[in-house]
């Protein structure tokens, strides 16, 4: 997914969505505009966002999973301090595994399959909070 960001010295910024496939991660073009005698230097930067989330809901989910991993690892270390062979310790690390795999699955989906899991849902429900297009 690529977006064209047009910056001008006067500070106006416009975003023009382009086609979804971009082979070069970064393409820059510099051009000059002459307007009423003023010289403006404008730069067009083409940024490819091939591996990132498209919808806000997915971006939030990525963040949520990252935080969960951290939290669950800390919990597991805490629980296992007493007895490493206890059931509680086993379960705590199993949860870490589950979340780690969930995060990895999401990453694979976004980076290799290049599909946002909310794609189908957001086609039907574009007005919902999670379906806002994620912009950075």
């Amino acid at each position: 997914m690529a977006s064209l960001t047009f910056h001008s010295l006067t500070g106006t910024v416009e975003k023009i969505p382009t086609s979804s496939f971009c082979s070069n991660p970064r393409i820059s073009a510099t051009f000059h505009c002459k307007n009423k005698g003023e010289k403006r230097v404008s730069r067009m930067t083409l940024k490819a966002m091939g591996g990132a989330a498209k919808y806000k809901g997915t971006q939030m989910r990525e963040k949520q999973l990252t935080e969960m991993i951290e939290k669950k690892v800390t919990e597991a270390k805490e629980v296992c301090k007493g007895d490493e062979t206890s059931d509680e310790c086993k379960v705590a690390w199993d949860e870490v595994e589950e979340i780690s795999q969930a995060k990895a699955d999401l990453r694979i989906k976004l980076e290799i399959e290049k599909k946002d899991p909310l794609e189908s849902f957001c086609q039907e429900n574009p007005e919902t909070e999670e379906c806002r297009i994620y912009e950075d």
Partner: protein
Amino acid sequence: MAACAVYTSQSLNSTCSISTPTKTHLGFHQKQVVFYSASKRTSKRGSSSGPCVITCSAGDSQTVVIGLAADSGCGKSTFMRRLTSVFGGAAEPPKGGNPDSNTLISDMTTVICLDDYHSLDRTGRKEKGVTALDPRANDFDLMYEQVKALKSGIAVDKPIYNHVTGLLDPPELIKPPKILVIEGLHPMFDERVRDLLDFSIYLDISNEVKFAWKIQRDMAERGHSLESIKASIDARKPDFDAYIDPQKQYADAVIEVLPTQLIPDDNEGKVLRVRLIMKEGVKHFSPVYLFDEGSSISWIPCGRKLTCSYPGIKFSYGPDTYFGHEVSVLEMDGQFDRLDELIYVESHLSNISTKFYGEITQQMLKHADFPGSNNGTGLFQTIVGLKIRDLYEQISASKTATPLEATKA
């Protein structure tokens, strides 16, 4: 036994609906189908929404069921993607449903994640002190009933286990596909479910490789370190050894992934030694072999005709016994670096069930970005995929020939 196919005379935005009213408590849909044409006619293009036609045809209602035991998450695994690719078409989650569904659907195949049959959600498991690997966390009765129903051509309402929230979400409708793949930790654990499988595969990853892969998976994550990754594997190992590992004795094919023997003391897990252990005497399945079936072969393809870069490629093939069964084992150690290495190897393998020369190579190239595309994991997963296609075609052919015999009461 009839399968009903629904056709509408209009395009996708049809206003037709079908209600399948009666459902048992186990989530089956009865065979009666009632149709009505809906009263609202909101078609943007103003085309008239006429009545819908439902055609019932007595088709091949017996679904071929494949079991895949793997510890690497569900339905999103590379193996599944390669398998569905062999049949053509990409596998997608059900459209318009729960975005957290674990199910994948393509034209021919539906892949179900067995985690959906968890009887305990994350909180429940914490309370009882059981991991997801423990059979006590899974409803094998429901698993059996629903796989049996799908196999006989009956749609089911299958629960969804949400891996992010750790909760059981409302069920989704699964229609019987031509090929049903059940993937997860326990496809062969319950004997009744085992008997429903037409073919079963076990992905056996050795501890060293598992550790290397999990490092690759998790090291970039904040919160993870080598210690936490190792601790997680070690903590799950007792349950894994007790409940998951024993299933491999029941598998028709085992893909064993081990560290390479070509590089001394290699611990990166990048070059792999992969063994395809194929049970002899399985209906509709003829094991792959090298050169001379039933003999023992050791083969290094690199030499005068083929130049390979370090560490090269080494094959072996031979008969063996595995948990008391006669098996044939095809083994590859090393990596493919170039296209011509792959095609060279393919041309020397026999019983690979390809439809044309170079099909394996083509499949591997199609997914060159998948992990394992340059070693035995990709090669053997692709071969197993072709074997499953072959098995499906044989079963379908035998059903068309003798439909009455094939349909079980």
